[in-house]
């Protein structure tokens, strides 16, 4: 029995099953959901790490749930990109979980309106673990209908998390987020129907092997692409993202911006890469144009925001653009392009989550997040200010950070393929990113002492977990061969 459980491919189901189990557990222990939540978060991270280790040792794993083979059964497949995303979710998710423990403790300790904070924590842990499990399932599923199910699970649990703060603005944002998500999923499901009609299979690898052009396939691609673009908030579908991300609780903002957006992008990338022979240069150019518009528009919006969390949320709109401008560069082979864009995704996830966590700490300490009134934060929260600045460095792409490595790969590919407008776009985008980051950081780091706010109310683990994530974002600049080796395990 133990031997069966520890078998190579069995590891695929642990990062999926453990958080789901933890969600139930933390829901049952509703008087103290924090302890089971944290334990399960730790176990999930460990199992994701073991999965990555197994992948490097034994190659791609495949697991048919219940022993049923496709087309009837549902199978999980862990190749390089999938496991890298699972690992990214694990690292970011563990830091967010530790942060959330301190966050709710600090909020409950502030006494005023204590009951509301306890209820928020009671619902946070089950929803967050459910979301974690659904994300891992999304990354690991090999079956397009299962992808639809996990997309819906991710959407429902992240809407629940969004409205948890109870603010009127977050309710409206959550409602809009839910409708957009359902619309995206339905479009995806209709596309799945067309693909099944054309190929008689739900297994993505089988479909991609049998690929040929026909009107239903074109219809399927259009429906799936639009559905996933809506969910990944690429310009001009970004309208729902900033209010939803900025009005949520601090750990929830980090989860949504760092992880959830990557889920639908990951599916889009996998589909688009598999269907690349059918798409041609026109489709890739459209994606790059939308990505470029997102980079410019998001950066200008971020620069003109008055609130720190809104600034970070619009920064997400801009950074999503980088995930899509990669498509014209896939012409000379998908391998290098995939390395660059996945590296960008993982370093953005760490950096953005660190920045949202830091912004949440600042909000909790100061009671507001108006950027021009943030002078003196440095004296009160030196570690948090440092974490915010470090995350910003990685977003800008300054060496030595993960963002730098990713942008360097982008630039070298663009130069070698003579796509000069893309080089220009990346350089302008980095400049604009620097502009809005410096605007926020200059206020946070300015030395004016604030009076009457001397007492630090936030828990130390909130500050340290944000810093740890920011340091991971920087560290990714030094250990580039490791994630890229993991990514290279395919086939």
């Amino acid at each position, binding site marked *: 029995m133990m031997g069966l459980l520890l078998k190579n491919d069995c590891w695929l189901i642990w990062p999926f099953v453990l958080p789901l189990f933890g969600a139930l557990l933390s829901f049952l222990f509703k008087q103290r959901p924090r302890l089971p939540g944290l334990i399960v978060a730790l176990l999930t991270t460990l199992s994701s790490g073991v999965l990555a280790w197994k992948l490097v040792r034994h190659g791609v794993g495949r697991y048919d749930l219940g022993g049923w083979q496709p*087309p*009837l059964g549902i199978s999980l497949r862990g190749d390089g990109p999938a496991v890298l995303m699972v690992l990214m979710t694990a690292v970011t998710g563990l830091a967010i979980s530790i942060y959330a423990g301190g966050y709710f403790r600090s909020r409950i300790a502030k006494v005023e309106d204590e009951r509301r904070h306890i209820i928020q924590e009671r619902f946070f842990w089950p929803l967050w673990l459910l979301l974690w499990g659904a994300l891992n399932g999304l990354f690991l599923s090999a079956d397009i*209908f299962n992808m*639809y*199910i996990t997309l*819906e699970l991710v*959407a*429902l649990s992240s*809407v*629940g998390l969004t*409205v948890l703060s109870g603010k*009127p603005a977050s*309710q*409206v944002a*959550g*409602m809009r987020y*839910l*409708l957009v998500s*359902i*619309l995206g999923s*339905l479009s995806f*499901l*209709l596309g*799945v*129907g067309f693909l*099944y*009609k054309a190929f*008689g299979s*739900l297994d993505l690898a089988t479909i991609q092997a049998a690929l040929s052009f026909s009107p239903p396939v074109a219809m399927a691609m259009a429906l799936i692409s639009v559905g996933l673009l809506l969910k990944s908030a690429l310009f001009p579908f970004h309208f729902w993202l900033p209010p939803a991300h900025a009005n949520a609780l601090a750990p929830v903002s980090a989860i949504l911006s760092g992880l959830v957006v990557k889920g639908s992008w990951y599916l889009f990338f996998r589909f688009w890469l598999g269907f690349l022979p059918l798409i041609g240069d026109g489709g890739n150019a459209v994606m790059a144009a939308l990505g470029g518009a997102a980079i410019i528009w998001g950066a200008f919006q971020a620069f003109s925001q008055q609130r720190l969390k809104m600034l970070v949320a619009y920064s997400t709109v801009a950074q999503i653009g980088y995930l899509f401008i990669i498509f014209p560069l896939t012409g000379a082979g998908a391998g290098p392009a995939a390395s660059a864009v996945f590296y960008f995704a993982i370093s953005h996830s760490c950096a953005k989550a660190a920045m949202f966590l830091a912004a949440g700490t600042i909000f909790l300490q100061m009671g507001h997040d108006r950027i021009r009134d943030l002078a003196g934060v440095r004296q009160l929260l030196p570690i948090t200010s440092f974490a915010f600045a470090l995350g910003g460095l990685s977003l800008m792409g300054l060496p030595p950070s993960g963002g730098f490595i990713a942008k360097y790969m982008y630039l070298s590919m663009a130069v070698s393929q003579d796509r000069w407008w893309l080089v220009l776009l990346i350089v302008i985008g980095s400049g604009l990113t620097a502009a809005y980051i410096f605007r926020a950081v200059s206020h946070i780091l300015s030395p004016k002492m604030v009076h009457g706010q001397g007492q630090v109310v936030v828990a130390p683990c909130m500050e340290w977990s944000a810093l740890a994530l920011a340091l991971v974002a920087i560290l990714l600049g030094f250990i580039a061969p490791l994630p890229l080796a993991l990514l290279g395990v395919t086939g």
Partner: protein
Amino acid sequence: MSVSPTFVYGLTGLFLFVVGLGGLISCPQLLRKILAVNIMVSGVFLFLVTIGYGHGVIIDPVPHAMVLTGIVVSVSGTAVALALACRVHETFNMSDLLKRRTRSNDR
């Protein structure tokens, strides 16, 4: 030339999808938006069920299993949407319903 019934069903499914999409975009009221989404869902399910009949005499069960799972998902989605719509309604009708606000403050 006769039109096969599956073709008609499939086309009706797509038509319902488009009608629901139009309603989702054009209706301002939340309840109507949720109903529009449900019409879209019905369209997608009708289309999926039709696919099962496409492959000859033997009926393919896989799309039917997909529809069953999809119904569960869509019911949960509708439930969440309705609950959220109630909250939004409570929050934003406060100016008209001052009594309700005072009552909820007493609790």
